[in-house]
């Protein structure tokens, strides 16, 4: 058995890692919808989901069950191949793009096979990501075209035009980071930001602030989120390219959208905000207790909130959840080895969730662009600024070399 594992480790370990990552990502996607609804509700002075489970925490589960059991009608005269292919392409590409992202610094050896906290370590990982982004237009375009509905077709056309336009700015805004790092590998880009060891100050965001702004705007447009969600402008186009989709196929588009939000947040974290590196200088060793400092009070607060919750189920579940959180926090103080091991992932996830929060915050705050504004902003402002950023960065790097 052990011999078999050693021999096929190169095949088994990636498959296990893919299964774990897909499980985690789908769960995070589901709870992202809950966080989004809660945050937007509080921005608009409402309660948000509150009925299923304590604080509506089981709402994603209920939504999932509903998606699976809904009827899935096939509209008349659709192009069947493209109609079925579109959601699969969209979801597959969205999940594939996560495979090249390194989530943490560690390398470990399992059954004689060296591996890290990522599915694949490719030395052109950034290019792979852009290649996948380039292909993801097809899912949207095909869904719009195959549905045999004018709303879907208009939504699909708008969406593909938007994605093609902003892809240029997205790619060019990253070139500055590539010039600084001198490598396409995401791991190298993160490691280089930590070489100087003075934390926050050596991240790419400071030399590349223009690049980051261009990147973030273009990335929001690529993921079709507010204020760039013209493809699904509901007051004009019903729901855009996925108007004619129902049940699980509709859910697949949604999962893909939330997954690409996660990918973009990971990418912004890696390229500009030092990935898994701590924002504090390496000499501040006391900052490694931050996960515990956050977890213990939050756990205690959940217990406190749970014992006076309005129904019996909440009074039973919430204190247990809070106790588990507080216990994990204490455990991290008691076992410094574990605490050291989770530092990288803690900072990575903290940054990624900050970006996801910004996404949701923008959805609750900003109005939608008009179509001509969108196009002229992309081509006449974002693209020239990203090109200027590339030229500026190159000149500064050359000037420093001499």
């Amino acid at each position, binding site marked *: 058995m052990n011999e078999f594992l050693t021999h096929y480790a190169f095949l088994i370990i990636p498959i296990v890692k893919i299964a774990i990552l897909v499980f985690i990502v789908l769960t995070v996607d589901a709870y992202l919808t809950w966080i989004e609804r809660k945050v937007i509700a509080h921005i608009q002075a409402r309660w948000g989901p509150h009925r299923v489970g304590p604080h509506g925490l089981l709402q994603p589960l209920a939504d999932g069950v509903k998606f699976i059991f809904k009827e899935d009608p096939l509209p008349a005269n659709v*192009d069947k*191949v*493209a109609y079925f*292919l579109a959601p699969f392409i969209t979801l597959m590409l969205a999940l594939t793009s996560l495979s090249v992202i390194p989530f943490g610094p560690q390398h470990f050896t399992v059954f004689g096979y060296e591996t890290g906290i990522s599915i694949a370590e*490719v*030395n*052109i990982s950034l*290019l*792979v990501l*852009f*290649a996948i*982004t*380039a*292909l993801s*237009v*097809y899912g949207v*375009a*095909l869904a*719009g*075209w195959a549905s045999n509905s004018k709303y879907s*077709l208009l939504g*699909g*056309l708008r969406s*593909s*035009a938007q994605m*093609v336009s902003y*892809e240029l700015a997205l790619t060019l805004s990253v070139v500055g980071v590539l010039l600084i790092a001198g490598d*396409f590998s995401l791991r190298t880009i993160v490691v280089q930001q930590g070489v100087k060891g003075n934390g926050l100050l050596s991240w790419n965001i400071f030399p590349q602030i223009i690049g980051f702004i261009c990147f973030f705007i273009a990335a929001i447009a690529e993921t079709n989120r507010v204020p760039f969600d013209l493809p699904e402008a509901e007051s004009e186009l019903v729901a855009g390219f996925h108007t004619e989709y129902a049940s699980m196929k509709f859910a697949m588009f949604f999962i893909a959208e939330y997954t690409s939000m996660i990918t973009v947040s990971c990418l912004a974290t890696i390229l500009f905000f030092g990935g898994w590196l701590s924002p504090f200088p390496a000499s501040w060793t006391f900052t490694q207790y931050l996960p515990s400092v956050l977890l213990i009070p939050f756990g205690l607060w959940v217990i406190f909130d749970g014992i006076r919750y309005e129904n019996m189920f909440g009074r039973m579940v919430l204190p247990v959840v809070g106790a588990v959180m507080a216990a994990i926090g204490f455990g991290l103080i008691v076992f410094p080895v574990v605490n050291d091991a989770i530092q990288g992932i803690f900072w990575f996830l903290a940054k990624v969730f900050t970006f996801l929060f910004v996404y949701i915050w923008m959805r609750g705050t900003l109005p939608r662009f008009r179509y001509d504004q969108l196009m002229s902003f992309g081509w006449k402002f974002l693209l020239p600024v990203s090109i200027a950023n590339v030229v500026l960065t190159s000149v500064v790097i050359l000037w420093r070399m001499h």
Partner: protein
Amino acid sequence: MTAPLVIFFVLAAVAVFGAISLIVQKHPIHSALSLILVMVALAGLYLLMGAEFVAAVQIIVYGGAIMVLFIFVIMLLNAGEEERTNLSKLAMYAGVPLAVAMTGLIAAAIVGSNTAMPARAPETLTSTRQLSTLLFQEFVYPFELTSFLILVAILGAIVLAQREN
């Protein structure tokens, strides 16, 4: 069979299937989708040879940019299924034997040649850094001239489009 060989045959089969499907399909969108399949399979073959940069660029430029334009135009024009006329039947009767003959000729040339073809790209071309050094130092003038040519073509297209208004 070794793993790379298996992957090669799978990718080659996908590429050939896509190419045949491109011709056989009646609807332009289905043909365009088949062409994308060919592009992606070719990118996989490049990756297998160790030319990672070329593989990524193949997908970004051909699979992404160019084919999106194709699909976009087909969708905008709302092109329907192609019609079969007498002329297209004639083309089929003449074309199939010609295609078989062409394939036979190429196969014969490959079988008959004595020189062993290297399956991998030369080591100097594999990494992105080496490729860019070659492109921007040794062959910088041909490279710049090519991009100038493309710029001229773009300008020409814009002039042609403007003249109609």
